[in-house]
């Protein structure tokens, strides 16, 4: 919701004594611009979970600013947080924050992104490389459906300064590079979009298309970039003919899928992730020592970090309804105006 940021510090709900006993959870989200999920989904679900557990919490957003990230961490500990849950902006800052928290006796949870060498108590995430893999697989599926011979594939990568973008790229490169090498596909232009800026993405893609008019598939790293590419394709009446990928299952992306302009998006069931993380945090805040279902190896320290890992899901036209069924987007926002008909066709109730 739009008021996601209004009152995040619950001060009144729980009685002071029990709150003191239960501790307080500080959550730092990374930004609000690369993806809508942080402010619209994660914040909401985490708040709900903490409220239900009667634990005090403080959720803030670092706006992609490392300095602010550290400052917020400092301030949360100052404010009495006993558990810290972070989505790091980069491992270096993340590690500093984790170590500082540790030195103050505050355990941390890595949320969504693993802090390399950080040694957080728990790790809860989607696998970002897996997201990229799904995108790569999705694009090749759509290209196969379109029966294009030796298609030229263009990359519209995320922000060059965003480590996640690097991970996504690893994922889809893993799928597509063998095909380039084998000559099934032809590697087209490959550019990154500063700050995930959709306007710049438009220009960049337009120029790709000018230089290489035969682009037959676009691997766009998220729905916003995908939409930028689709706008340019529309201008050239190529929309629907050139498959485009996406990520985040935004209303915009899903609508583009319904309209047939976008081939797929990747849906990350944020609620599951948030619930799992909140469960761990609440337990830690209450002084318990919860166990996680799995673990991952920190490649830097070679230590196992207890982890809860979620599976991202590829969304095509035929399973758009899953996202609605999950409550991640509502039917009202998705099936507005012209899309009502398409929704019915796609079987969305």
């Amino acid at each position: 919701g739009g008021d996601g940021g209004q009152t995040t510090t619950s001060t009144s709900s729980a009685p002071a004594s029990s709150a003191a006993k239960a501790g307080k959870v500080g959550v730092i989200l990374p930004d609000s611009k690369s993806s809508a999920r942080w402010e619209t989904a994660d914040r909401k679900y985490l708040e709900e979970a903490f409220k239900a557990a009667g634990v005090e919490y403080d959720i803030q957003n670092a706006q992609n600013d490392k300095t602010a990230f550290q400052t917020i961490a400092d301030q949360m500990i100052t404010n009495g947080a006993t558990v810290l849950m972070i989505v790091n902006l980069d491992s270096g800052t993340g590690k500093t924050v984790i170590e500082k928290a540790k030195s103050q006796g505050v355990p941390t949870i890595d949320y969504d992104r693993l802090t390399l060498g950080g040694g957080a108590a728990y790790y809860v995430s989607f696998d970002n490389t897996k997201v990229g893999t799904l995108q790569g697989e999705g694009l090749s599926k759509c290209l196969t459906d379109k029966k294009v011979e030796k298609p030229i594939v263009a990359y519209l990568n995320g922000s060059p300064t965003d480590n996640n973008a690097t991970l996504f790229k690893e994922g889809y490169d893993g799928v597509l590079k063998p095909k380039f090498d084998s000559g099934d596909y032809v590697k087209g232009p490959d550019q990154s979009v500063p700050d995930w800026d959709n306007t710049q993405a438009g220009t960049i893609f337009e120029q790709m298309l000018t230089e290489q008019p035969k682009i037959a598939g676009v691997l766009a790293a998220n729905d916003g970039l995908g939409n930028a590419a689709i706008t340019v394709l529309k201008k050239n009446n190529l929309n629907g003919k050139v498959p485009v990928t996406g990520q985040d299952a935004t209303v915009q992306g899903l609508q583009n899928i319904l309209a047939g302009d976008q081939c797929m998006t990747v849906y990350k069931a944020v609620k599951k992730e948030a619930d799992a993380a909140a469960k761990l945090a609440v337990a830690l805040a209450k002084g318990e020592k919860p166990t996680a279902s799995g673990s991952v190896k920190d490649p830097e320290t070679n230590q196992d970090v207890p982890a809860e890992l979620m599976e991202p899901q590829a969304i095509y036209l035929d399973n758009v309804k899953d996202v609605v069924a999950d409550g991640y987007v509502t039917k009202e926002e998705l099936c507005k105006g012209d899309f009502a008909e398409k929704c019915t066709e796609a079987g969305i109730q």
Partner: protein
Amino acid sequence: MNKVKELPGEAIVTAAEAPSIRNSFLAYVQRVRGGDMGALPAVLGLVVLCAVFAAARPAFLTAINFANLFTQGAAVTLIAMGLVFVLLLGEIDLSAGFASGVCAAVLAVTLASAGLPWYVCVAAAILTGVIIGTVLGSLVAKVGIPSFVVTLAAFLAFQGLVLVLVDEGTNISVRDEVIVAIANKNLPPWLGWAVYAACVAIFAGVQLRRARKRASRGLVADPLSLIAFRVGMLALFAGLAVAALNLERSRNPALVSLTGVPIVVPIILVLLVVWTLVLRRTGFGRHLYAVGGNTEAARRAGIPVDRIKISAFVLCSSMAAIGGIVAASRASSVDPNTGGSSVLLYAVGAAVIGGTSLFGGKGRVLDAVLGGAVVAVIENGMGLMGYGASVKYLVTGSVLLLAAGVDALARKRAAAAGLR
């Protein structure tokens, strides 16, 4: 007699000989050699850039790329045109980028949720710009906070405002056909030619009328031959541009035809003409230059300095609103980054490259358009080159420096001659 003619002070308080093509040309050459370059350095920089890119990538010179250039550079150019007003005063507006984002978001939200007709939504967006400008201008002029600080604060606040408007980070699609057409559709070729014809005719008419009026007052007026030459040059270059844009540039002409002048082009042209007229031929424009040149002198001449300042901010934010509308049209969506990242710096850069001074008192709207063209060409060319992120940043920086360097060296000669 010969010797006497050379004496300065001869042609006292009157313009020299009657102008003709030849005389005008000679005078121009002399002016340039003497250091008064006008738009020449910027044009020179532009030509160098285009040559470099055309040599590197043949696609740069295609009709489709020529058309791309206009739509790609439109938003930044429009914002830069507005910034000229504020820069003329020696002030700055750091928030112009995000102001365009706010206005674009207002447009998108009213279009999407309220379902109002497009013109109401456009009016709402521009009104938002006017309000923003009024607030910023009043804080600068009446409260006296430095514009850098006011607009830095606004830069932060507007980021928040955009986030609120777009629901904390979602993208809002813009699907209204009229709005989307602005940056994505073209005039039908015949209309392009019609507009072209009208422009040339009006230009010729204005020039002729002016000359006749001056002649009738006994003032030095341009002769017919010179006017014919000017009109001819305009007709030639504009005609070439229209012809190029009317070429078929579809990749699949059988499937779909893509021809015509992009709709933003006449929008920018009209605004360019209007603001140039305002700056050069109205009292408001004159006062803007005066305040920028010497605020104290303007105040002593009875010019309402505060009002002029506020108006400049209003114009700047309104132009930002129009830029935001074009950006929203082009992306067919509005997101929290609309107007963010490099938009502002590029816009100020465009104005400055064109020759507008950050100290006020010097600049033209045309400068912003030329500078905007430089920025657009760089972005466009770099997109074609397909460099990786880091190389792209490095090369973009160097190319910008190159274009500005050509300009600076040309102007340096003027300064060396003792002219400012």
